[in-house]
């Protein structure tokens, strides 16, 4: 009997920041390990739904330029989600322009060339098979800052191989017509140190635009705008941080915490982005102007329910 060998992807080009991600690892903040996980949860959910994968199946998340992968092995299916430009280069060199939210089949020596995200940051590649990577503390997510998680805590690198193993699947060549809508405001709830800021700063925060700077990654997003004047103290006793919290250090420019954030910090918290707007915020590229809008807790909870309902409706539209 011949032994079936594992299929694999060879990474011909790793891309800028390509990592394995899922919903992240929970309940380790108290020893300094953040939750990690996908930056845009809806696109992660859709990627797995299109392939009829289980909901928390790990995917490859990429930012700006994605990887170029050569497939080796039997036929498999894949899908890419997000606003992503990519090509499939068939083993006879025929090139097919890829469409996100469309399931494709590939065979031995076909390549997927993920060229770039359009006016957005993150995209997702999911496949119909099991990716052979380590699960650490109930998650496959890679945290490159702490060097924790799958792939030894490192992003993908050129020439590495990703082993994949066949699993029972009921994938079909399904698709979804979806274009991610941009939003006008990022909605926030006032946070615990809102009153540390001057009356003018409070007004500025909700009236003026803030620009996303290049100093933004999976840990956080730094913004730039009119300086937010603190009239109480620019340091607080270090305390826990959560995803979406907007901190303002002494330079007066806000920083929003993302998936790989440090677990504690000592800057005052002016506001907190609502859960319904995390995905859209994460996709905002450097240079984008953000305006904040205040909502209360009850509204935020409703908006989140509505957002999830939209996601469910999208899943139901897959055909």
């Amino acid at each position: 009997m011949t032994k079936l060998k594992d299929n694999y992807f060879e990474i011909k080009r790793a891309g800028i920041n390509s990592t394995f991600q899922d919903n992240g690892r929970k309940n380790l903040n108290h020893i300094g390990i953040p939750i990690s996980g996908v930056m845009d949860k809806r696109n992660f959910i859709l990627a797995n739904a299109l392939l009829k994968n289980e909901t928390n199946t790990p995917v490859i998340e990429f930012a700006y330029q994605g990887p170029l992968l050569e497939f080796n092995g039997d036929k498999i299916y894949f899908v890419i989600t997000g606003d992503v430009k990519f090509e499939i280069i068939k083993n006879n060199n025929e090139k097919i322009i890829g469409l996100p939210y469309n399931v494709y089949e590939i065979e031995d020596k076909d390549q997927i060339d993920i060229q770039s995200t359009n006016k957005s940051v993150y995209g997702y590649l999911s496949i119909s098979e099991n990716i052979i990577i380590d699960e650490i503390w109930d998650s496959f997510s890679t945290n490159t800052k702490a060097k924790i998680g799958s792939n030894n805590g490192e992003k993908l690198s050129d020439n590495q191989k990703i082993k994949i193993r066949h699993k029972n699947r009921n994938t079909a060549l399904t698709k979804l017509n979806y274009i991610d809508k941009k939003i006008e405001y990022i909605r926030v709830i006032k946070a615990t140190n809102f009153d540390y800021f001057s009356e003018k700063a409070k007004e500025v925060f909700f009236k003026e635009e803030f620009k996303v700077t290049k100093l933004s990654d999976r840990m956080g997003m730094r913004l730039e705008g009119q300086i937010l004047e603190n009239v109480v103290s620019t340091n607080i006793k270090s305390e826990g941080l959560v995803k979406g919290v907007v901190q303002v250090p002494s330079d007066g420019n806000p920083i929003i915490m993302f998936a790989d954030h440090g677990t504690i910090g000592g800057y005052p918290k002016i506001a907190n982005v609502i859960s319904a707007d995390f995905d859209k915020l994460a996709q905002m590229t450097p240079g984008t102007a953000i305006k904040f809008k205040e909502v209360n807790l009850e509204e935020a909870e409703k908006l989140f329910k509505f957002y999830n309902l939209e996601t469910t409706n999208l899943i139901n539209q897959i055909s």
Partner: protein
Amino acid sequence: MIKNILNLGDAAVYCDFGKDVNQEININVINYFQNIKDKKIEGITNITPSYNKLIVSFDLEITSYSKVKKIIENLELEKKFEKENKLIEIPVCCEKDFKLDNDRLEKKLGITYDKILEIFFSKEYFCYMTGFIAGMPFLGDVSEKLRAERLKTPRVKVPKGSIGLTEQFCNIYTYESPGGWNIIGNTPLEIFNKENLIEPALINPGDKVRFNRITQEEYDKIKR
């Protein structure tokens, strides 16, 4: 006791134990942390204790602020703390390559380095919290004779294992990391071991720590 419970965004409960930072309050925070953790409440994604705050994050798809708040308010506290804290011994080498802020501290505190170390090694420290980077313990209280501000310009890279001082606290850099604390020495021990899946952090909130001074020779031996 918790003075005030607030929401932090739509997916976290912010428990405020007041403004003061002392061990009594922090033990209270840790006690709440352990009690909430042991209850395994559905939908909780993180419980983050710090000096005088406790943040409980949750998955808004599963639960909500009002539900989690109610559970915390009605929690019947068991005294877990006394049972679980332990004493951990940390060897520290203060030879020339490791005492990065020797001159700065001597100048700032007006005492010799030997005296600084004598005071530093003479007591046990209490772990208020662990975090910022994986496994980094925040320990206190440092003697009033050794209180120094953090560096005006933080170092881009503080070496792994560095022991730092700032105000009433000391810490251990579990990884090479940016940081602004005054570095007095270095430990060869792995303070955070990601291979240990059950207990990766050597020092957890509520633990006690004793630092023991070692020579370069002893340091190299442990490091090997």
